[in-house]
């Protein structure tokens, strides 16, 4: 019953990739949402890749062939989406902005992934005072509005605003720091759960060295929710970047195109009825975030058997749904960890389970120990800036 719905091993590897495997087992609305998400995300990536080909101008260009664009020009043949108050071409900035967004996502998510996963594994497996301190710090940082933390960090890193690389780095690092606790919490909780699983205990009984248990058994099984957090964090990264830009702590407009900054500049435009400078960068943000979020949400639902859409009709009825339950209740004292947990809903439960307790504690009392409380479930955790 731990048994992850890992796609059958005999499938070729590309069918077992997270998103692909999810697509294959989705149905109905969930499949629609997943496909829509994949398309939007794909669009974002493609535009970022081919930005130089797609964009008519550069992001900081105000003249072409000696002719000034002019400020706040409405959409026209020369400027399909109009120009901004600083005389930039809106379309070009929207297109170039994808690059900034993708760069920040990659840097931030990859960095936080590595650090968070490593800390979570070690902290969850060894426990003790180090674990307690790390959990307390992670909890504190986690509860703190990430935008405010990002503001503080961007002040530290770049002193406010700066060039393209430093600006992107500043945004990426501040987002990284905010995200580490999320990976840390999830991986730690998963590690703690796995640590009490018989297969890890059996490795312990065998006498396998810690490194083998940790990286051989625990790590491999703990990472299956990562694609999900990855997508959710990616969307949050875009929002945090845009939020920083919007309050004027992002990247200099001449260094790189950034949607949040453009929206910041368009606040005054809106008051005078100029809609195109706000609408298009905003839509770009919405589509990017929506795409990644849809992918993440559908994956979350697919991993959660309670939320998965049941396929109707014969095929489903033929599947012996009850079988597993009968089997589980066979034994009167079968309160063994994980026995009543179907794979996906662990996300919800895992943070509140203490490994040493669960054997004996018939009631779950998350509040008993603040350290083990999981107030959060991935996806609900994000403050959305």
């Amino acid at each position, binding site marked *: *019953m*731990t*048994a*992850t719905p*890992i796609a059958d*091993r005999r499938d070729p590897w590309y069918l077992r990739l997270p998103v692909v495997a999810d697509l294959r087992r989705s149905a109905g609305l969930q499949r629609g949402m997943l496909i829509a998400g994949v398309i939007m995300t794909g669009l974002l990536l493609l535009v970022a890749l081919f930005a130089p080909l797609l964009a008519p101008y550069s992001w900081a260009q105000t003249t072409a062939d000696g002719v000034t664009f002019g400020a706040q020009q409405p959409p026209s043949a020369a400027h399909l989406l109009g120009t901004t108050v600083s005389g930039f071409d809106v379309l070009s900035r929207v297109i170039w902005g994808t690059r900034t967004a993708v760069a920040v996502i990659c840097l931030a998510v990859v960095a936080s992934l590595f650090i968070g996963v490593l800390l979570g594994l070690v902290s969850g497996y060894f426990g003790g005072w180090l674990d307690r301190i790390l959990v307390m710090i992670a909890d504190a940082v986690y509860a703190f509005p990430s935008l405010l933390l990002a503001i503080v960090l961007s002040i530290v890193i770049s002193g406010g605003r700066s060039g393209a690389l430093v600006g992107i780095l500043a945004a990426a690092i501040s987002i990284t720091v905010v995200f580490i606790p999320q990976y840390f919490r999830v991986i730690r909780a998963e590690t703690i759960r796995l640590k009490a*699983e*018989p*297969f*890890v*205990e*059996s*490795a*312990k*009984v*065998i*006498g*396998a*060295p810690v490194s*083998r248990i940790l990286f*051989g*058994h625990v790590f*491999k*099984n703990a990472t299956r929710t990562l694609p999900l957090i990855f997508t959710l964090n990616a969307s949050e990264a875009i929002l945090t970047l845009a939020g920083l830009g919007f309050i004027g702590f992002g990247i200099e407009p001449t260094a790189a195109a950034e949607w949040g900054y453009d929206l910041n500049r368009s606040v005054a435009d809106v008051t005078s009825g100029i809609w195109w400078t706000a609408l298009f960068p905003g839509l770009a943000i919405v589509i990017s975030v929506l795409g990644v979020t849809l992918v993440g949400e559908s994956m979350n639902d697919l991993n959660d058997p309670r939320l998965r859409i*049941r*396929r*109707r*009709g*014969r095929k*489903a*009825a033929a599947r*012996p*749904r*009850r*079988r597993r*339950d*009968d*089997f*589980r*209740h*066979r*034994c*009167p*004292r*079968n*309160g*063994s*960890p*994980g*026995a009543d947990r179907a794979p996906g809903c662990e996300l919800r439960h895992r943070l509140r389970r*203490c490994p*040493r*307790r669960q*054997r*004996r504690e*018939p*009631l779950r009392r998350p509040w*008993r*120990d603040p350290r083990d409380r999981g107030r959060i479930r991935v996806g609900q955790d994000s403050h959305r800036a």
Partner: protein
Amino acid sequence: MGESGSGKTVTARSILGLLPDTAETSGAIWLEGTNVVGLSAGRMRSVRGRQASMVFQEPSAALNPVFPIWWQFAEGLRAHNPKLKRKELRRRIVEALKQVGIPDAEKRLDDYPHEFSGGQKQRIIIAMALAMGAELIIADEPTTALDVTVQAEILQLLRDIRDTHGTSIILITHNMGVVADLADSVLVMYRGEVVERDWVRELFANPRHPYTRQLLAAVPRIGVKSASRDLGPEHLAELESREPVVVAEGLEVTYPGRLGSPPFRAVRGVDFTIHAGEVLGLVGESGSGKTTIGRAMAGLEAVTGGSLRVLGHEMRGFKERAFKPLRRQIGFVFQDPSTSFDPQLTIGECIEEPMVVHARDLSATERRDRVAKILEAVELPREYSRRFPHELSGGQRQRVSFARALVLEPTLLIADEPTSALDVSVQATVLELFTELQHRFGFASLFISHDLAVVDMLAHRVGVLFQGRLVELGTGSQVMSNPDDDYTQRLLASLPVPDPVEQAKRREFLRLAAGGS
């Protein structure tokens, strides 16, 4: 009656239309002259609870944790009669609670489910059926989640209700003993079909269908295949003279309390010895500390008092580094075969792991040879080494569990309820396998189980645990046939035997014993 996947629960649920929306039902179910199949939602609702009421497997899950129990009663009663007054409601609830033997019913009405014990919760759910005047109670494995002694009481309660109220009961269970105890007539299901139907005495005396016969033969019975029956005093003396593998003296295991709450003493001063080649059975109900002892022997739980010597190594204040070389001498089989294997590894890799850790000098081919050999020993084809755990059935996985534990030919095997997650017929083959392996490899073993009959089949000596104390220790046949301790006697008396005639006698005895004290 039937094993998992036989369709017994689904059948019962369809009576009340409680199947998931994805299921399709056809045919007819006649409930007091109404066909309930395809009934409209509203009509079905009026049937539910009033004509037929359900009792579920897990009493703690079947009660809403955040509402007092009177509220949950009232919801059911009001659903059929919204005009009921509060006073009348409470009167009826108290009456029903009294009927099922909840003491202080007037006061306990306002309590929440967590303030009741598991057996009491099941009584409350039965009381709900009574309060609503259900003429049929559908009890889906009503005692499976309960301990044996509590099970006996719940079965008695159901019998009383049948006698006093004339209520019909559909009892769904995999446990032949429970069937023999309560049922008047039996319906045996196998893979979604009814294979046999008969009066209970007739069925147990002359099963006609081969499946029924096989099922009845597979049920472990105390004293039938007892491993210790033929042990003479000279055998015992010989066993005792062998080198002790495990010695526990005043063993205590205490879990620290959390946030200032008092610590929990799971094991409170237990003494026993396991000699080389001896099987010690440890029996007890949930929370008796039997699993904790097994885990402490493997170094998974810290010994906090007394002494526990495993293979000459003191486990109190134990250091992993010092103990590690001894680990190759210890095998461990876990209860739940579905979680005891890393889902990412093949069966072969799982079995190889002990060799990779302890026998580094073995080459890859040698390792593979040994995997093949041990797979053969547990009666699995060697091709299985390339499969993944989720591709195997529960029984097969438990065989692999034994293979992994025995691949290094250990001197001690700790088996923690290895068969309790399995169906009866599968359990029988696994138990047979255990006996055979024990003869072949001659390991000493601690065999933990909640089932007296299972332990009787395997163990030379049996220990009975009750609330962390070892209340009885002796040879299997001695403990089973001539127990000294009160608790052991009750435990034995509560265990329903799969024979309606015999069970009726035992019931009478139990009632006299209970009335007498």
